[in-house]
């Protein structure tokens, strides 16, 4: 028991201390004293390139701030975000969409934007309201968006079927066109992928004076509406206008535009968000166009609506809320950023930015802008955003829809099941 073991002990301890202190390094400030922000978003590689350019432009203007972007595809984005938020390591600037701003806002994870200096006076109120819940502005919209029918005219031509008129077509027209296409298209090409998705149910039920949710956060869609919907999609499936059940189930697990039937040039139509037009066109390698969803003209009320395509919000626990606000301000209010992002995150919600980029828009972006402009006077009432828990709805719908497509549930059973499951999810 001389000095050697003690020296050894000291060495070991030093090693442990070193290891521990290495874990505890502060992430927020880099060596040169610059503030480091993290920015989380979802998307494909093209969006990643554009986003990095925006970050570079922001950093050039704000030498004291560095921004680190991190992204995944849409399906895994929210799983990852939930984990990061739970661990207290969520990005400073968080991209959200749909019902998520409310979900996170209600749970206290987002900063009240009135506490930081962020200008929103040039942003359209319809889109701005998508980030406002209980009187608190939790996020600002990246742009404006609408659910639409994406058309591949080349596939229509090949089948010798006329592209329908988006202003007048009804659901019966839609069924007729789809069945006609399916008879004339080569094997493996379809009129469209299975059209069931929660935003389409929103549009479809709104046309009947319903919606997915009531303003006070309950299920609003009726069983009858759901039964009619599934009766139609089953007809399409049986006619070969949409793919067999197992192919649909496989497509659900591959959400990227390049993986969809439309993106692979294997579909004549696809219901999707208008801002996907650019990515879909690039993937399909042929010009695509946007028309409105069927049934708008003869509906009780128009089902389509203007929606904030994405919402930028700030982490309530961010150590640098002012710098984060500066970055969000750059994203939504700067024409420089707008010229890089173009319409990839929706038609810019800021009117100045939109004018500023008009001259540099490409074909697809112009088409989207025109589509949104054309829709604005014809859109239905603002959408009721789902309450906390409603972010489960798309998953519930995927499950129930699979039951229907694989013939395990009749539409009536599935409708009751869907309403019950969504009801349970949103009351928790």
């Amino acid at each position, binding site marked *: 028991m001389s000095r050697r*073991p003690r020296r050894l002990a000291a060495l070991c301890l030093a090693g442990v201390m070193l290891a521990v202190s290495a874990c505890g390094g502060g992430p927020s400030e880099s060596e040169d004293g610059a503030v480091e922000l993290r920015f989380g978003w979802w998307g494909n590689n093209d969006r990643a390139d554009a986003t990095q350019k925006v970050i570079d432009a922001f950093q050039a203007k704000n030498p004291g701030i560095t921004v680190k972007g991190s992204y995944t595809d849409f399906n895994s984005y929210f799983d990852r975000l939930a984990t990061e938020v739970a661990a207290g390591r969520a990005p400073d600037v968080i991209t959200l969409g749909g019902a998520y701003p409310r979900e996170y806002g209600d749970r206290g994870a987002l900063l009240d934007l009135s506490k930081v200096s962020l200008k929103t006076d040039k942003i359209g109120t319809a889109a701005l309201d998508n980030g406002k819940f209980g009187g608190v502005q939790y996020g600002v919209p990246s742009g404006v968006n609408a659910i639409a029918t994406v058309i591949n005219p080349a596939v229509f031509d090949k089948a010798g079927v006329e592209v329908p008129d988006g202003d007048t077509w009804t659901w019966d027209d839609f069924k007729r066109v789809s069945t006609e296409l399916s008879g004339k298209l080569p094997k493996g090409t379809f009129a469209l992928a299975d059209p069931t998705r929660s935003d389409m149910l929103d549009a479809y039920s709104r046309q009947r004076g319903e919606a997915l949710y009531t303003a006070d956060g309950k299920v609003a869609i009726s069983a009858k509406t759901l039964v009619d919907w599934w009766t139609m999609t089953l007809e399409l499936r049986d006619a070969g206008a949409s793919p067999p059940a197992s192919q649909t189930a496989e497509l659900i697990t591959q959400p990227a535009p390049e993986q969809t039937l439309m993106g692979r040039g294997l579909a004549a139509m696809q219901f999707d968000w208008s801002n996907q037009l650019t990515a879909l066109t690039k993937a399909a390698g042929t010009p695509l166009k946007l028309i409105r969803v069927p049934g708008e003209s003869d509906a009780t009320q128009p089902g389509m609506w203007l929606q904030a395509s994405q919402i930028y919000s700030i982490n309530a626990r961010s150590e640098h809320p002012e710098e984060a606000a500066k970055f969000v301000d750059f994203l939504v209010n700067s024409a420089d950023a707008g010229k890089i992002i173009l319409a990839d995150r929706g038609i810019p919600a800021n009117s100045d930015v939109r004018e500023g980029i008009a001259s540099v828009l490409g074909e697809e972006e112009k088409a989207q802008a025109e589509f949104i402009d054309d829709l604005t006077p014809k859109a239905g009432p603002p959408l009721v955003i789902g309450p906390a828990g409603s972010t489960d709805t798309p998953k519930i719908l995927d499950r129930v829809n699979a039951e229907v497509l694989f013939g395990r549930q009749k539409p009536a059973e599935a409708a009751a099941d869907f309403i019950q499951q969504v009801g349970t999810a949103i009351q928790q």
Partner: protein
Amino acid sequence: MSNRPTPAIASPEREPPLARGRRRRRRSSPSGPARDRIGYLFLAPWFAGMALFTVGPILASLYLSFTEYTLLKPPEWLGLDNYRQMLADPRLHKSLGVTFVYVSVSVPVQLVLALALALLLNRGVRGLSFYRSVYYLPSLLAGSVSVAILWRQIFGKDGLVNQLLAMAGIEGVSWVAHPDFALGTLIVLNAWTFGAPMVIFLAGLRQIPHSYYEAAEVDGAGPVSRFFRITLPLLTPIIFFNLVLQLIGAFQSFTQAFVISGGRGGPSDATLLYTLYLYERGFGSFDMGYASAMAWVLLAVIAVLTGLNFLFAKRWVFYGN
């Protein structure tokens, strides 16, 4: 024999260096409590990690399982509500069913494959180490995301399997996305990882003394009865070991099902393994309390099954005299 006088048979030339060495060692290395202390010191980083990253979270999850915890607000005490809710949760029951089918098919298939291959390789194949490595590879790879993606491609609508079927004029479905077949593709993937138990079987086969076989052969035993009377009984401890390990592992399978089903356990919950549902409740629906309760139930299920395994082992596992 350390302090005994020099034995007569040992050569005197070799003795002094040995003794010197022993003395030197005694001088330099501390004995008793001091040596233990150094041992523990070396273990300290591991203990710290264990306490911080394993025991701590385990205890935390036990507490959380009695609470409602949505990640963003502090947990609220619920008592046994989560466990009560589990009794009435149809998706939980579905996921248990899926998991039991998965485990009870894939583990036996995998073990039989492993044993068969081990027997084959044990017959003195040339290039044994090469085959051993090749068959072991899937065990290293199969847990990875890339292999799961590969699986999705192979068994997808336009995948390899369907291309082969198309040559025979059969139009296949998307195997990974059909409720009747999706779980089967996962079972095949798990069975494919027979390499790890195979290597252990091989080691076990090597330990069976050759003299037994020779004696049996002299007595006129054929290859079949040699297998059932000698190989299998003497291998039972190894079979038992593999069974316990693979069973525990299979219950915790997650990655493959997660990747292949796109994180959803679909279609219509056909591949909703228990762990996948646990993950979905925890990280998809922000139900960490419920997910923690599920984790503890899984632990209990695995513990009970492993306990039963050990209990029944007395009946069939043969440890020699």
